Structure formats: C-alpha cells, structure tokens
C-alpha cells in the first residue's frame, strides 16, 4: 500500500470536524437547546475557521513538558525559600490580590468554556473551547501551587476560596464572571473569549507577570511564562468567535456590538484593581497604569477596532470615558482601599516620598493636583499615630460593585453618581457605562449579591464589623488586614533580612 500524504489542515479536519454526524434519532435542538435564545443567527457552522490545530496527543505532550519545567522551578523556589528574594514584603500583597481575586476567575473560565464546549453546535468551536476549558483549569491549579509556598510565610492567602465567595471587593471579579457564566453561550464567548481574553488580557496578565519579574517573584513569573502559549491560543479563539459571529449574519452585528460595549466597560471597571496594583503595590514599578493603558488599549485595541470596522463594529461605547479615567483611576482605587484597609484581606499603605515623586512624574496632570495633598495628609495622620480608616460602609455600584468613589472626569473633585428606578426601587451607579448595562437588563442586575446590602440585611455573620470581617469573611483581624506598617508580614520580613545579613557577616568572617 502506498501512503498518500495528507496535509495538516486536511488531517485536522478528519480528526475533529469529521467526527461529527447529523443526528437522526434525536432533534438537533434537543441536543443543543441553548443555541437560539440569544437571537444570534448561525447559518453554517462549517464556516468556523479553526483558530489553532492541536490534536490531543500533541496537547498532552506539549503541555506535559511545560508542566514538568514549571513544577521543577516551583520545587526549587520552595526549597530555596525564594519568597525571601522579592523586592520588599509589600509586593506580596499584589499576589494576595491575584490569588483571591483572579485565580477563582480562572476556575470560572474553566467551567464557562466547558459549558460552551458542550453547548455550541459546531464541533470545531466546541473542541477549541474545550481546550481552553482545560487550560483554564491548569491556570487556577498552577496558580494555587505557585502561591502555596507564599501562603506558608505570609498572611492573607490562606482562605482565598472562602473569601472569594464573600468579601466585598472580591464581589467585583466574582460578579463579573457570574455575569458572563449566566449569559447565553454566545455572549459568554464575546465576554470572556473576546473582550476579556483578547482585548483586555494584556492589561491583566502583563501587569501582574511583569510586576512579578520586576520584583523578584520567581514563582509567579514562571507561571506567567508557562501560561503564555496557552494565552496565545485563547486570543486566537477570541478573535475567531467575533469574526465568525459577524460573518454568519448581519443581524448579529448589533447584538455583538452591544455585548462588546458591555464587556469592555465591565472589564475596564474590574481593571481598576489592576491599575492600583501597578501604581501602588509594586515596589519596583514596571510602567504606570496610564502607560500600560496607552500601549495595550489605545494602540493595540485601536488597531483591532479599526480592523473590525469592516464588519460594522465600532469602538466600545464609553471608551472615551475610560481613556479620560486613565490618569485618575489607580489613585482613586488605591484611596478607596486605603480608606477601607481594615476591611481588606491584604495590607495597604501610603507611598513613600520617592514613590510619590514617581507618581508626580508619571501623572503630571493629576497627581500633584488632586491626590498628593490628600495622601500627604494621610501620611501625617499616620505619623501622628492616627492612621485614617473610614468607619462607614460604602455605597456600591449596582453593576460593577465597586464603592462609589470614582469622580466625574469633567470635574475630578466630585463623585460621579447615577440612579435608575426599577420596580419601585432605586439603584445606584458609578458611571454611565454601569447604568446602561443595568438599564438594558434590570431584571438581571437587581439580583446582584451586593456585599454592603447583605451586611445590612444581616446575612454576613452579624451586625458588628468583627462578626462580618472575622467570622464571616474569615479575615484574621490585626493580622491579614490594616496597614502594612506594623503588620506581622512586615515584622517577619525584617527578621529574615536581619538574619540574612548576620549570616553574611558570619560568612565573611570565616
């Protein structure tokens, strides 16, 4: 028998598409009951272009090699107590935020891609989503393993999963993923596959992973490098889903545009946490949030949307607002967390003089004018032994769930505030973007589990802050929370480093 050569594309088709068949004992709609209710029109699944061609044998082999290398480094990191090599113990708070806020999102993404990986009618799309599902499971698990060693030496990592379900600021990422997961399969794909993984991913992962690289965090940076090729696959899938939906039917265009508007805004709001992490929590700065935003959204996103214009897709609504906010958002978010530093599961602090100067330089239009005076006042209060904590409970935006504290970009000294009425009740919003999202689907957003409302309703362990923070959130009071200065984290860090210098002295002496 002489063997014919089959090209890669044809072979991949035979190994995926060709496995499918036309059902005749049961109806297509019984097997894929979720394909129509969103109003998306699919005329021909065979037009789906495979974003990557990876058969399972190659997947196992390739991923196993990556895992082997990753775990070898994590083992070495633990053995050598690599946690001592980070720039400064304040840094570790950035990865506490990551493990409690982002890693559970990876888990949600795994479930979501698994769900669409079953529910989409096209086998090519299903298989691509399934591979992303298992990749996302990889991410949550490897992140837990990368942080596992930090958890043994720092406070605030220890109950990440319990906290994610309950703590007030973690409801920002949690509600984001819940929102996407409860949407139909196509909206999920536009929300997570495209808006998140394609448009905004570089503003989430690059800051954390580069932050790790700049701050001596071998464990996180190794995870980041290892996940890079997974993310490259995810981005191609995100782009394909958009092109596919837009090419399938012109009626899909306005639906997709609305989803892009919504998920761009929702994503941007969630990124406020990343913005403050970059500008305030990294002892060694990578670049400012504003710079990252300009490179990864304004330039990269700008050319992407230019590209999509031929389908009739426009820049997301409120992109202008988001662009105006780039000079403010990190300072405002950090102020909120500094205010509520007693209610967070990580430490907050005021920037040093040198760090303030860096902020002035990076934010010449805003920092000295709006934020420095406030921060200097807080620093003085701290020096006088009266570290400022805000004892009240904040009002939350009904959509993004961030405390209402962002200001009007026309007048950066006054808080932006919108309201809607639905079914006789009033709801509050931090922005026009959040109000629009609510107004389009009020019956969805009235369901939000708003942490502050829940506290008032007595659903969070009791009436006192101790009940809520200690018993319900399981924050170790006086240990995980409050200012970094005076924290057990800081104390241990100083102890290790004095010890190390004593050791060095010994070494030099001998």
């Amino acid at each position: 028998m002489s063997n014919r050569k089959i090209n890669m594309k044809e072979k991949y088709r035979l190994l995926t598409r060709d496995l499918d068949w036309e059902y005749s004992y049961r109806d297509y709609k019984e097997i894929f009951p979720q394909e129509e209710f969103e109003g998306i029109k699919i005329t021909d699944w065979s037009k789906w272009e495979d974003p990557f061609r990876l058969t399972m044998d190659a997947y196992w082999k390739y991923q196993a090699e990556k895992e082997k290398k990753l775990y070898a480094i994590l083992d070495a990191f633990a053995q050598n107590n690599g946690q001592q090599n980070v720039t400064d113990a304040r840094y570790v708070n950035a990865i506490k935020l990551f493990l409690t806020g982002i890693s559970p999102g990876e888990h949600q993404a795994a479930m979501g891609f698994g769900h669409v990986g079953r529910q989409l009618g096209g086998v090519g799309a299903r298989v691509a989503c399934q591979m992303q599902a298992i990749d996302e499971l990889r991410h949550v698990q490897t992140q837990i393993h990368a942080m596992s060693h930090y958890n043994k030496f720092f406070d605030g990592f220890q109950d990440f999963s319990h906290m994610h379900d309950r703590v007030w600021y973690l409801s920002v990422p949690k509600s984001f993923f819940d929102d996407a997961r409860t949407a139909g399969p196509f909206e999920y794909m536009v929300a997570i596959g495209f808006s998140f993984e394609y448009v905004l991913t570089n503003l989430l992962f690059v800051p954390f992973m580069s932050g790790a690289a700049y701050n001596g965090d071998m464990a996180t940076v190794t995870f980041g490098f290892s996940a890079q090729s997974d993310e490259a696959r995810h981005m191609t899938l995100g782009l394909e889903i958009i092109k596919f939906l837009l090419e399938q039917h012109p009626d899909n265009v306005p639906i997709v545009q609305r989803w892009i508007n919504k998920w761009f805004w929702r994503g941007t709001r969630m990124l406020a946490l990343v913005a403050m992490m970059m500008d305030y929590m990294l002892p060694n700065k990578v670049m400012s949030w504003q710079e990252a935003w300009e490179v990864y959204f304004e330039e990269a996103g700008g050319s992407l949307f230019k590209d999509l214009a031929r389908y009739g897709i426009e820049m997301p609504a409120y992109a202008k607002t988001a662009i105006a906010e780039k000079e403010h958002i990190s300072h405002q978010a950090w102020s909120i967390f500094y205010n509520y530093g007693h209610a967070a599961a990580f430490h907050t602090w005021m920037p040093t003089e040198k760090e303030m100067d860096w902020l002035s330089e990076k934010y010449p239009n805003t920092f000295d004018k709006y934020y420095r005076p406030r921060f200097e006042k807080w620093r003085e209060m701290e020096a006088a032994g009266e570290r400022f904590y805000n004892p009240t409970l904040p009002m939350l935006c009904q959509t993004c769930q961030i405390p209402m504290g962002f200001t009007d970009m026309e007048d950066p000294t006054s808080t932006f505030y919108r309201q809607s009425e639905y079914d006789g009740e009033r709801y509050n919003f931090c922005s026009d973007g959040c109000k629009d999202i609510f107004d389009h689907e009020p019956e969805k957003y009235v369901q939000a589990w708003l942490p502050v409302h829940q506290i008032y309703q007595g659903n969070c362990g009791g009436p006192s802050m101790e009940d809520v923070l200690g018993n319900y959130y399981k924050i170790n009071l006086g240990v995980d929370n409050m200012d970094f200065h005076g924290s057990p984290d800081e104390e241990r860090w100083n102890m290790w480093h004095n010890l190390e210098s004593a050791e060095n002295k010994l070494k030099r002496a001998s």
Partner: protein
Amino acid sequence: MSIEIKTATLEPIRHTFEHTKRRFGDKPASRYQEASYDIAPEQNFHYRPFWQPDKELFDKSRTAVVMEDWNVHKDPRQYYYGTYVQARAKLQEVTESNYAFFEKRGSADRMSEAVRAKIIRCLVPLRHAELGANMNNMFAFSYGTATVVNQGFLYNAMDRLGIAQYLSRIGLLLDGNSTESLTLAKEYWMTDPAWQGLRRYIENVLCVKDWFEVFIAQDVVLDTLLYDIIYRQFDEAITEQGGSDLAMLIEFMQEWHKDSSRWVDATLKTTVEESDHNRTTIKRWVDDWREKAVADLAPLAEIAVGDTAMAASLDVLNQRLAKVGL
C-alpha cells in the same frame, strides 16, 4: 551553625491553605489536595442563568443524587492538571512508537483484506461514538459542583477526543491515507443496522439533563460493555483471524480504560454509599440504561465477535456493579 538558625527562623507560619486544613487537618497537604478540594464557588451567586433561570450557578439540584458534601470524593489516580497531562503524555509516547512501528513493519499490508475490512466496519466507526462520549463528559463537567469531581469529567472528555482521533488514525493507517476507511466508517455509523443501536443510545444520552445520570449511562454502563466487546473480545477475535498487529493500535484504549475505570469505580462507590436514596436512584438509572444498552449493542457485538459476546460483556458489567452493591 547557619543552617540551624535558618530552619529555626524560617519556620512556616502555616502548613497549608485553610480549606485543606479544615478538611485534612493541620499538616502539609499534597498538590492534589490543594488544587482540587473546596476551590469551586459555593454561595452568594449574583445572577441566575438565562439558560436555566430556575437554578443557580453550581446548583446541586442539577442531579437527583444528593451528597451532603461533594468534596468527599477522591480520584484514586490523584489527577490534577499537571499529573493528568503527564500521565497521558507517557501513554501517548508509547502509542506514537506503536503506530510508527505498525507503519514501518507494513502491518496494514500484512493483514488480509477481510481483516482490514472487519476493522473498518467494527472498530473505526467508534470515532463517532467517542465524540459523543466527549460531549457527555463535558456536560457532566460543566454542571457538576465540586472541582474534585468535575475535573475527572473534564479529563475523561479530553481523553475521549484523543481516542476518537486515534481511531481516525487507525482508519488512515489501514487505507494508506486515502481516507476511504473514514468515509466508509461514517456510512456504517449512519446507516449500517449493526451500528444504529449504539448511535441511538448515544443520541439519547446527549439529551439527558441530569449530569450524574449521564455519567451512569455513558461512563458506567455503555463504556463497560463497549470496551469489553471491542477492546477485549474483538481484539481476541481479530487476533485469531490473523490481525494480531491491531493490538499495537488499541493499546492506548485498553490502558486508558483500566486507568479511567479506577476513577469511575471510586466515583460510583462514594456516591452510592452516601445514602439509600442515592442507591435507589442510581439503581434505577443502571437498570434502565443497561436494558437499553444490551438491546442497542447486541447487533454490533454479534457482527464484531459473535452471538455470545453480548452476554459475556454483560457479565463483566454486572460483576463491576456488584462490587458497589448494585
């Protein structure tokens, strides 16, 4: 001396995460434990799914079986992503060299036309059944509640896609890449009376709404019968007919089935033993699907092996079920 100081002062402040500590005690936990137990969200869900507004995300009522705590399950293989892909990478390495050897040796040409035709008729169409198994396991993954249970379904789903791809490659090895075998196999799958029962069974399972019932219908009942008929009995029959080299091509499926069965048995056992309610519910599903499977698979068993094949594999299934008292 410095070493002494170091161990004394770099004493960890805790051994593991709180969720593993609550479950397994205050001691270092394994990577399997830290990454598998209690990491799925459990409460305070924000919105109800548009696609199923009567339930929450991670709603436990998506199956009729009830566990006080789904996190009491354990995969005896202790697979988390890293251990899973590494185990499969090993198996695929062996498979790759088997397939290369089969090709180098010219094994396809050494088989008689009749043997090749029989493999194309009785084995290669399973590539479609495996895609169905992939979808069914993906379904269970996406509707289960505890990661320690769910991840097993995700691994199983990806395995089934891999097996469907190996089966397709078997076709291509037998037809010298002309793809005729795959076309033929699909025709059998769509129209051959011997295959219609299995296709009907799979399409029926694709419509089941209870994810644990899907597990019973697919991974417990169907896979036990089908893997016994094809990968044990048909393998023996084809060897007798001079097709012993087929063994090289299906070693993956045989090894995989052994591996996967450890997880299937453990998942079944823990759930059945939880309560009489679970036992009765699962018993009902087993009876139901077993009856259908025997009727649906008998024609295939007959042409693949002979008229005693169905009864023999039914014995295997019944013995397996008896171990968990079903």
